[in-house]
Each structure stands twice: as structure tokens, then as C-alpha cells.
């Protein structure tokens, strides 16, 4: 396979595609006003569900992803029902608590999850990194396709109305809980898919890795960098963030300084492109068109 030329390239592809899925999933929930600080919860249950069902039943990766996504969707729907009408910061804190709670449960149930020592995938089930990369890329494409399809339905209207004013939206017949359950189930399934595939690449999972706060943060960087609430923005942002972090790592070495440069670049981007890179491109486009029209 041409793209599987080196281990490094596989690593990049897997990281980039998983970041795209996380960004798209996070942005989907955010577009309805549901700001998640617990995306690692979906990622984590996806990882565990894939590994545990595979090890128990000897399932190959593609099959193990089905229970992973189901569990992710179930967790999303459950989150929507439990949080009820919580909005904004209250919803965000509830998601943070969910992720942290799941991490503690994973540590406390060693018989089931392997506890703090973690758990390995049955080596016979593991596949080549290029296959893992291919599945992750397909997943990323499907997740983009799904959000594009949603943007062409009435859901797109309900989401934006809920984000702006959930109370007023109700007077137009929008039933918030329906859409909350739907959107969080979908976002949960997406993030769980990414978590499930990623664990196949590493072959090992422990509670700290599965429910890592960094996953939550990375999920938000893409949309913020690329352009929140847009279709293209999270994709551009996720790819750009991977590019930035890899470039910083290669040029400045793995430690300290590279991370600092990466962080500074992110802050600058967010400061000077408040609508993200995609928002900046659109602005330039309208500016250019106006200039041309002005000259005519």
C-alpha cells in the first residue's frame, strides 16, 4: 500500500483521522448548544467496549466497532436524559463529571476492565497499522458525510435555534430533549468509533489513557482553530492542529519547547481568527468579491 510506506506515515494518518472524527463529533454537539467537556468518556467507552468484546468473543476490529459505537450512542443518549435541561456551563461540568466517573469505575473493576493495570488486545486479533489507518480514514469520511447530510435537514434548523435560545425555540414546536438525545447519541457513537479503532493501533488500554482529559481538549481544538459551528472548519482545524504539533515536535524536539511553540501558535490563531481559519477564508472571499464589484 503506497500510503503505508513507513510507520511514521501510518502514525500521522491515524492521529489526523482520529482528530478529525473527534472534532466533527464535538462540533456536532456544540452546534446545538451542548458544550462537552467529557468527550473522553465516549472515546474511553468505545476503546473498552471494542477490546472487551473482541477478547471475549474473538471478534475482528470491524465487528468489534459495532458494540463500541452502540455503547457510545447509549452513553450519549443517557447523558442527554440525565442532564435534562442543563445548559452551558452546567451541562459542561456534568460531562466532565461523567468522564471522570467512568475513569474511576474502570479503575475499581479490575475483574472486568483489568483495572489500573490495563488490558491488552488478544495479539491474534491485531492487524497491520496500515489497516488501522485505512479504517480510521473511512470513519472520518463517514462522520463528515453524516454531518453534511444533517446540515441539509430540518435538524440543522432545530440545532441553531436551540443554540441561540432553547426557550424561544420551544414555542415553535421544537422539543429539545428529542434533539439532545439524537445529537449526543450520534456524537457519542462517532467518538467511540475513534476510540475503538485507536486502541487497535496501540494494542493496550488503561483507565488513564481511555478517559484522558487530553482527548477532551483535543476534541475542542479542531473546531476552535478551524471554525466552530461550520462543516469544514473542524476538519481543517483538526488537520492543522496535528500538522502544527508534528512540525513543532520535529523542529524543536519532543520536549518542552516544541509544545510551547505549538501552544503559542494555537493561541495566536484563536486570538486573531475569532471565527477560525475557515471563517477567515470566508471573510477574505467576501472582501475580495466586494473589491472586485467595487472596481466594476
Amino acid at each position, binding site marked *: 500500500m503506497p500510503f503505508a510506506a513507513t510507520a511514521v506515515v501510518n502514525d500521522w494518518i491515524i492521529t489526523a483521522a482520529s482528530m478529525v472524527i473527534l472534532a466533527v463529533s464535538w462540533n456536532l454537539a456544540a452546534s446545538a448548544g451542548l458544550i462537552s467537556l467529557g468527550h473522553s468518556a465516549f472515546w474511553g467507552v468505545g476503546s473498552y467496549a471494542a477490546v472487551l468484546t473482541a477478547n471475549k468473543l474473538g471478534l475482528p476490529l470491524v465487528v468489534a466497532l459495532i458494540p463500541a459505537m452502540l455503547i457510545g450512542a447509549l452513553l450519549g443518549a443517557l447523558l442527554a436524559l440525565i442532564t435534562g435541561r442543563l445548559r452551558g456551563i452546567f451541562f459542561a461540568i456534568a460531562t466532565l463529571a461523567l468522564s471522570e466517573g467512568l475513569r474511576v469505575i474502570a479503575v475499581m473493576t479490575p475483574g472486568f476492565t483489568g483495572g489500573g493495570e490495563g488490558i491488552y488486545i488478544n495479539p491474534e486479533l491485531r492487524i497491520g497499522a496500515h489497516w488501522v489507518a485505512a479504517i480510521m480514514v473511512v470513519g472520518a469520511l463517514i462522520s463528515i458525510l453524516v454531518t453534511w447530510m444533517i446540515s*441539509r*435537514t*430540518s435538524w440543522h*434548523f*432545530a440545532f*441553531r*435555534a436551540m*443554540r*441561540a*435560545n432553547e*426557550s*424561544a*425555540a*420551544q*414555542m*415553535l*414546536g*421544537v*422539543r*429539545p430533549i428529542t434533539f439532545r438525545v439524537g445529537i449526543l447519541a450520534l456524537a457519542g457513537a462517532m467518538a467511540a468509533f475513534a476510540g475503538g479503532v485507536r486502541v487497535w493501533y496501540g494494542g493496550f488500554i488503561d483507565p488513564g489513557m481511555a478517559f484522558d482529559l487530553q482527548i477532551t481538549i483535543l476534541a475542542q481544538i479542531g473546531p476552535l482553530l478551524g471554525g466552530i459551528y461550520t462543516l469544514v472548519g473542524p476538519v481543517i482545524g483538526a488537520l492543522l492542529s496535528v500538522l502544527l504539533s508534528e512540525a513543532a515536535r520535529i523542529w524543536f524536539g519532543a520536549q518542552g519547547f516544541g509544545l510551547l511553540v505549538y501552544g503559542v501558535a494555537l493561541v495566536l490563531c484563536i486570538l486573531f481568527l475569532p471565527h477560525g481559519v475557515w471563517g477567515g477564508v470566508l471573510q477574505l472571499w*467576501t*472582501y475580495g468579491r*466586494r473589491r472586485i464589484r467595487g472596481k466594476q
Partner: protein
Amino acid sequence: MTLLELSGLRAGYGGSVVLDGVDLTVGEGEVVALLGINGAGKSTTMRVITGLLDPSGGRVVFGGVDITHFPAHKRVAEGVCLSPEGRLVFPHLSVEDNLYLGSFHPRARPHRAESLERVYALFPILGERRAQKAGFLSGGEQQMLAMARALMGRPRLLLLDEPSFGLAPLILEVVFNTIGEIARSGISILLVEQNAQAALGVAERGYVLSEGRITLSVSAAELSSSSDMRTLFLREIEETTVPAPVSIESKPAAVEAGLDPEPILQIRGLHRTFGGLVAINNLALDVKRHQFLGVIGPNGAGKTTLLNLITGYYAPSAGEISLNGQRIDGLKPYDVCVRGVGRTFQLVQCFPEMSVIDNVITGALFARDARISLEEARERVRRPLELVGLERKTDVLAGTLALGEQKKLELARALATQPQLLLLDEVMAGSPHEDVVELMAVLRAIHAAGTTILMIEHLVHVILGLAQHIVVLNFGEKLFEGSPDEVVADPKVIETYFGTPTNK
């Protein structure tokens, strides 16, 4: 002596130009009115003067100091205080804490007690409710709080953006008398106001703003008599009898003769309290099918609370509400909507980041159990948008519309839900005279097409000109009900609501 001078002021949002070279002065101790149609740039001018929006050109000079690029808080310290459009009180703080925040800057802080005494003397109702959360005040009381909060900052220049918004006639009179008193105490006032008659009653000079430029600058007396002004802004008494468009009978004879005896909405023993305060007290009310019902009453009478109870935003403490014979109390707003009730809000609640047409499409999409396609929704919203006159602004972001236009957008959005019963909460507020006349015709047409309407409105000539039947609320109870003629003749209603005997 000149206190405020704007010269060549230019400003806008994103790429759009709203102010295109505004020149304006306010003298020491002078009251100046800034008039103009919706979207002329009045509120934008206020935003630039207060420092909430940075101008792209021109200068703002205050008391001889160039404050063009001063941050907002520094301008307050200089003595520029704003009572903003839409009140913007802090809903979770008590009335007194809101007022305290008005005197936050060092120049005003030492005089807090004295200022507090003064604003309580001006607005006694605020003194009575000082410990209550501002969010529990009625719309009109919040308006008073916003003005009082601005006064707490010991302004040299008081900016009032639509102070008449949501005020009952009696209070309107009090507030404008108060504005006169404030002016006599030596404070300069710049007044943005749709109620031009009231504004020119207190102002010495007036400016007319049109498409981001000052087009007229004369004394108030000249402005009142100018013929353009009369047709554009002034609310004349004849309006009560504005003839409806020929095609529409204002009160269709068939409807008049035989209102369906079965009420579409029936309310019995309705009761609602907020933390010990009785907002609605044992209210019984029938809205007959095809009726145009007006609800009036002083600020804080419980009018908006009544709408919130009908639409499920509040649950009643006791009592029953039935729509078409079925109980709807306890239902959520979306279920009430699906059963055929549409409403607009007192403070506009459109979706600012969505375009005008997308706002209305949202109304068309979800209001029925049977979902319709996007194409069908797009088709269905054309008529409501034309009715309210926004058909040429369909792709504009709702948040950039002027207040009166946002009110119209909300009306179009409510119409897109195809309601049997339409509840309107001061839908005319923020609209200039010309639009009010148009909107009255629109509401007549909607009513003639078979929609039952319950309307809350403080513009007396509007409610008397439209409603077939009027209910007067006071302290959450029904004070009086009857035909418009009976209402204006009732001494109790005159005393609690109109203030002066009205022959309007």
C-alpha cells in the same frame, strides 16, 4: 455651552456601514431627541457615544475632551450614562444591587445613599421592591430600573434609548414628567424614542437620522409642525379610526354577529405566585373563536405572566387552562405550540445568528405533528414574510435588524407555525408610526383570515382600533372587561390605566 459633540461619525458592523458621517451636538442642560425610522442608526449612535462600539471615523467630544477611543467605563466616569434599549437589567440581582452597580465608578460611589434616595423618590415602585430580584419585575418596572440605574451614575449626559418601551399610558406620563424633572436639575439628555409625540413634548431640539446621516435638525416646535414629521412619526388621534384596507373588513360582519359560543381558550381559577408575590389571582377568562381580544393593564398587572402560563413557560399554582376543550395547563411550550398556539415575546427572542428566512423556516418546520419538507417550509414562509414586510431582507442575519424589525420577524415566525390562537406581547413596541399603521392592517388581515388573536399592547389607539373586546388586568385580577367604548368610559380603568380621561 456644548457638552457633547459628534462630528463626522462613521461606524458599522462587519462590512456594513450604519453611520455615515453623523454630526450632532447636545448642549449643557439641554434635552435633545434623536428620531428616525427603524434601522436608521439611532441605537448605533448610542453605542458609539457610550463606547460599546468603536467608530471607524469621526470624533466624539465630551465636555471638551476627545473621548472617541475611551473605553466604556471611563466614559461613565466622565458622566456619560446609558439606559439601554431592551433594559438589560441584571435579572438575578436585587433591585437595590442593580442600582448600586449604577454608581460603581469612584465619582458616583460616595454619593450612593443620596442618589438612591433620589431615584426612589422619582420611582416609588422601585423603593417598594428594592429587595426583589430584578428579573421578577414586570417589563415596565424593569424599564424604570434601567433609567434609575443610569441616574445612579450621576450623569452629566443621560442617554435614554427607547424609554417608553413597554410602559402603560399612566406610567408613560410619569416617566416623561420625570425626564423633564431630570432635565431641569441640569442634566443633559439625549433621547432616542419611537413615541415622537412624547419625545418632542420634553425635548428642546430634535434631529432626524436617516440612512446613517442627520437629515433634519430643528427645534422641537418646528419638528412637531413639520409635515414630514407628522406623516412619518407622530401618532395622531385620527389614527384610532384608520380605515382598514378596502379588501379587508375591520370587523367582519359574520364574525361580529356570530362569534362561536364555544371558547377556543378557557381559563378558570388561574393562580400564580412568585416567591410570595401574587402575579395572577383567581383569573377567569374566555377567548371566543375568531375573537380579537385586547389585554391591557398597568405595568406589573400580570399580562406577560398570563401569556407565559397559557404557553407553558410557567406552571399555574392553581387553576385550569383549556384549549378547544382540552386541558393544556402543565404542558410544555412545544406541546402547546403543536396544539395550535403561536406567540411573540415582549423582549424579542429571535435567533440572531440565523438569517431572517431561516428564523421563519424554523417556525414552519416543527409546529405540527406531521413534519414537512424543507422545500415546503421555504414555500410556506413566503407569505408571512411578505405580510410583515421583510421579504427583501430574507438573507440578512436577524441579529443585525433594528428592534422594530425583529418584532416583525417574531410575528412572521409565529405566523409560520400556523396558529389557531395567536398571542401577541407588545408587538408594536419599537416600531415607528408608519409601521404601526401597516402592522394594524396586517393584524386585521390575519384576524379576518380566521385566526383568533389575544393582544397585549400599550399603544392605546392600536388596541382600541383593533380589539373587539378588551380585558383590563390589575394586580393579577380582572378589573374590567367590555367593548372598547365601555373600557374607555369606565372610571376605574381611567384611574388605574389611562391616567387622564381619554377620548381617543
